[in-house]
């Protein structure tokens, strides 16, 4: 990693062009364009959002207004709709991610044990990941349709109840979860499968010679060795789920009532439907803070672990 590409000075003098510069300057020059993009277009807007969060900004009454201190923060913390959207988000994340992890890992084992056809199986599994949630999600409304939908048609054929998938207060969030599980379980399965296939063979052969039970092999060998990969998938899925917007926007628009209104969707509604930019910006700052803490404590150690292993190997 730290080893640089500089050539010993004695050789460099004869070899390099007159514009020769140090490694340090060269390396800094290379990152300037990307850093500029990120600083200007990611950090400046955030600074702007931070500024708005301390002001009165009701766009229906004109421009961004006066400094109001922490009023917006107080208001958001006392806003029951905000907390309810946090609740919906947590419920969605917990259920969807758990289902995706469990099913995904199970599917990975299922495919890993298959003797033939792995290539075609993998190709088919990738498909949902290529599609946009906004487009396929919209089409899922047709599948969920109470009158013309295929799902209820099949349920009816086997004599099961035919629920109102998107209109029923108790079911709507589950319908959004089911769609998310459809789209993202293959993601978990693919990565878990890659992890399984990268495991070294020797420990498993040794365990077999010792006559260890399948359960014991799973518990003492497979899962401990898979843990880093699985944990990475878990963190990536969680971060994505907390930000859920597209599926809600096309499937339920937060309804019925607000039972599927996630944090992102409530933030969008507050800022761009009710035009309370001040409250919305405050929520954005809360949200951002939570994500930064999460990625600092969960994602960073993980990725560092992976990249150091890669550069050793």
């Amino acid at each position, binding site marked *: 990693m730290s080893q640089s590409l500089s050539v010993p000075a004695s050789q460099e003098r004869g070899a390099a062009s007159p514009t020769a510069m140090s490694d340090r300057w060269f390396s800094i020059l290379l990152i300037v364009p990307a850093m500029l993009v990120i600083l200007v277009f990611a950090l400046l807007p955030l600074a702007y959002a931070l500024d708005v969060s301390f002001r009165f900004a009701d766009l229906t009454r004109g421009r961004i207004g006066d400094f109001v201190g922490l009023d917006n923060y107080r208001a958001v913390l006392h806003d029951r709709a905000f907390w309810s959207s946090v609740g919906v988000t947590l419920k969605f994340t917990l259920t969807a991610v758990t289902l995706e992890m469990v099913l995904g890992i199970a599917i990975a084992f299922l495919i890993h044990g298959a003797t033939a056809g792995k290539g075609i199986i993998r190709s088919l599994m990738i*498909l949902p990941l290529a*599609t946009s949630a906004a487009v396929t999600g919209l089409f899922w409304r047709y599948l969920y349709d109470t009158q*013309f939908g295929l799902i209820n048609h099949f349920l009816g054929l086997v004599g099961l109840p035919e629920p109102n998938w998107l209109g029923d207060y108790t079911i709507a969030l589950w319908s959004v979860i089911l769609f998310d599980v459809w789209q993202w379980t293959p993601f978990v399965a*693919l990565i878990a499968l890659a992890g399984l296939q990268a495991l070294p063979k020797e420990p498993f052969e040794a365990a077999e010679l010792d006559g260890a039970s399948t359960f014991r092999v799973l518990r003492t060998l497979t899962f401990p060795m898979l843990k880093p990969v699985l944990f990475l998938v878990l963190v990536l899925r969680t971060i994505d789920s907390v930000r859920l917007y597209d599926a809600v926007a096309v499937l339920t628009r937060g309804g019925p009532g607000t039972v599927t209104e996630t944090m992102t969707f409530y933030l969008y509604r507050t800022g761009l439907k009710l035009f309370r*930019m001040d409250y919305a910006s405050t929520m954005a700052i809360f*949200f951002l803070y939570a994500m*930064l803490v999460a990625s600092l404590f969960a994602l960073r150690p993980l*990725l560092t672990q992976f990249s150091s292993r890669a550069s050793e190997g």
Partner: protein
Amino acid sequence: MLQRESSFAKEALRYGLIVLVLGFIVFPIAWMIITSFKPADAIMVSPPRFLFTPTLENYVHAIYDKNFLFYIKNTLFISVASTIIVVVTGSLAAYSFARYNVGDGHLLFFILSTKMFPAIAVILPYFLIFREVGKTGIGSFLGIGLDRPGALIISYTVFNLPFAIWLLVSFFQDIPRELEHSARLDGLSRLKVLAKVVCPLAAPGIAVTGVFTLIFSWNEFLFAYILTRKAASTVTVGVESFFTLQGILWGPVAAAATISVLPMLVFVLAMQRYMVRGLTFGAVRG
């Protein structure tokens, strides 16, 4: 895992389950494509009809009446432009991170944390800023502002750059340093080494990163939905235009959705060797 003799019944069960899982995964997409070829009188019927005479009328409706190719054209322009910027600036930065370890890992992680930003957090400032910039002469000259392509090009560049840098770093790390060393000893400048030795070797990785960026931009919805109205709208927003007062026109929706999803399906299938690596920011090399 264990190389045990597995009976025929066990194998049959395994493949039965696999077929079931694949059915669940593929079915919604397949049904969407099937619906796109259904005549109108076979779509809004109960029970759903599985046999019908295929027709192209939904495609005709989507393309001629709803002008769906307009959205395709917008999306293509916006995603390609943003992908080019991402790949060029991203490759330079990633090479620097992979070889010179600028910022000792901290900078690289800072870049990743911007990827973790919830897009919605920057959307409000983007909305306000682009609204103001759009009113100025510079804004209209550069095509930046609400409902202008520049706004989305910028958004997609910012949001894909961190991902691209991480993935590219993993590809650059795979290139053996010895080649660069010997090229340097042969008298090539650092820039020439990068252009003539490293880039050709990294080309597959750069291409993979580019395709990922293209797919993400193509499928993006939130920015497109909020920052555009009509003139600069992309496919994901365009599909929404099929909502009418009479309800959703499912046939044309399916046709439009198929048109917009198909190119990405092809890309993803072509790239499947790199899917795992791409989806984990280069961490799992699959």
